[in-house]
């Protein structure tokens, strides 16, 4: 399998900026991703998805540098993809494929050795609780099942760097709890980067939190450090929400007041 045991930082961003025409989506971001769960928080348009796309190599920075330590130094961009898994916010697929076909296809794209494909697909199905749906056509999956499939396909190559864009978006509370369990089980031995709107997810999952606002990092630290930002007069119902508001620089009357 492709997993590569790296030491230190898996991905390092140094002064990275990214611009869509006139819009500056990321502004001078310096960041290191290491083993454990890194949660990226931020409002809509903060630059979370852009940052994730940079991390997985879907886009390249307008300025600044991005370095990977996911495998041997001689890796080409294509070969590096063997060590990366990415679950986009919206998973695109051919609806005529079955769940197993789709995972096999992604395993082929990721160059999972032919002799390991069966096991890799089975493990992905088990981890995401999709075993019962293995033969089902993708067009017949519900929204929650598709979210789990997105995680399953990102896992199929046992990536060293796993990047999940809003994995809990659109899920009902029960499904969110299930998803959290899945992420907890897979996040302990690799670099897992998650973007989320849900501050509550952090407590259960994140080793490290990064708050993005208008393309800039406004907070970087662990959950306890984030919680310490919560003060009276910031916006939110819970301590973490108030801390998040503080990290974003949003002030206002707390509803608990």
């Amino acid at each position: 399998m492709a997993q590569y045991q790296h030491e230190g930082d898996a991905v390092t961003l140094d002064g990275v900026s990214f611009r869509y025409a006139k819009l500056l989506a990321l502004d001078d971001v310096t960041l290191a991703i290491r083993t454990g769960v890194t949660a990226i928080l931020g409002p809509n348009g903060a630059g979370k998805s852009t940052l994730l796309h940079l991390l997985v190599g879907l886009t390249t920075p307008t300025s600044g540098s991005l370095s990977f330590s996911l495998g041997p130094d001689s890796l080409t961009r294509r070969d590096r993809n063997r060590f990366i898994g990415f679950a986009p916010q919206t998973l695109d697929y051919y609806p005529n494929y079955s769940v197993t076909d789709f995972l096999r296809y992604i395993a082929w794209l990721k160059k999972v050795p032919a002799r390991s494909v069966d096991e890799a697909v089975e493990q992905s199905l088990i981890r995401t609780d999709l075993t019962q749906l293995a033969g089902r056509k993708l067009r017949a999956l519900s929204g929650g099942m598709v979210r789990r499939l997105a995680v399953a396909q990102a896992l199929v190559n046992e990536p060293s760097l796993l990047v999940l864009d809003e994995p809990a978006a659109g899920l009902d509370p029960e499904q969110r709890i299930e998803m959290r369990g899945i992420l907890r089980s897979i996040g302990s031995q690799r670099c897992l980067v998650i973007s989320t709107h849900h501050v509550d997810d952090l407590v259960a999952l994140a080793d490290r939190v990064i708050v993005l606002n208008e393309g800039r990092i406004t907070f970087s630290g662990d959950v306890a450090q984030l919680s310490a930002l919560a003060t009276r007069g910031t916006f939110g119902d819970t301590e973490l929400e108030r801390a998040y508001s503080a990290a974003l620089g949003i002030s206002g009357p707390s509803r608990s007041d």
Partner: protein
Amino acid sequence: MTSSVRIELRRGPGPWAAALALALFYVALRRYGAVLTWMDATSAIGASTQLCGPAAAGVAAYCGARALRRRTASHHRLGARTELASTGSELAAYALWVVGAWLAAVAVTLLAAWPNCSWGHPDVVWMLASGAGLIAEIAVGYFVGRLVPTLITPPVVAIVLFFGTGVMLSHVNAWWYFLSPLNSQLWLPFDSLRTSNFALQAAFLTGVALAAGAAAAVRLARTERVSLSTLGVGLFVSVIAAAGLAGGDGHFWTIDTHIEWRCSGHSPTVCVHPAFVTVEAQLNQQLTAIAARTAGTPFQVERFEQRPRGLGGTPTPGAVAFAMDVPVAAAIPDTAVGATVALLNADSCQSAPRLSSARVEQAVVEWVSGQAVLGPDRSTPDPVGDALVDEFNRLGDQAKRGWMTRHADAIRSCSFVVTEHR
């Protein structure tokens, strides 16, 4: 076979496209008509892609647009495989289905031809060129679909290719005819295929297929070095092959200078092309009857030779040449008339000034050949000619031979006058 090809074989549009292809091959082969020789069979296979090629290209355009329409291109960009590998596996899986259907149609055509074809063999290079044409149409359709991923692209691709190949078909003997993916021509005996032209056509179309497939991959990732180099190789091969074709004369055939015959019988000896062995006995019977009717006259004949139509050359001294295009019994009456016309030089009536002469000549040809002949226009009253014909027809066989001996020169020159006849 890679895992992705296996998945695409089951889940892609190939299975239903192959069913459609088989139906279109059936229609095209039915329209082609009788397959009487191996060359006919080969030509029918060349024609089989006339309907299916454009339709297969249309479905390929739909297939090529899928990645962009479904926005799955990001999976390819995040994969460890090159774009050429992922594009190639999708294209290969689809092409395998359609080419498989074509191979089935080829097998059925050859099996159906088997009982009728006793000489020669199907031309492999010609068939390969047809197969390469089908693959090139699929690859071009796939590329266009990826370039313009709209819902209207597939039908437009199919229609443009159908009419485009139709236009090309009407320009046979132009060198660029061989740039078309469709090639089908009527084979005449004694013609030899210009195999080199088919080989160059196959190379050109293979280059086009390679370039189109690589261009489809480049469409997704413009910087893929492997795709760009494959695109370059495809273009290079097709340009070199096209230059080779342009340097030739674009002809399908060369008329053989060395004629191969199969001869049978004595007085007369009948020599036919070996492909006509299936009708040899019936033809021999007809030509022997002609020889019997002219025995003892200046038109006595010892040998009949089938020769190339048009530029047939001169028959062996003392022999009479005839032409026959297809080895089928229904063509024998016309062949007998043709042999008689050659024997009596009845073609001279085409420039004869007198209508009566043509009528008399017609009567002689009908008696000698034993076949009714479409003669000169009978709507013009010609009592003199009618009287002469009646008089000839009333004669017995021996008397007719005597009459032919007396009027041999007039028969050869189609120049009867009343006084001569009496």
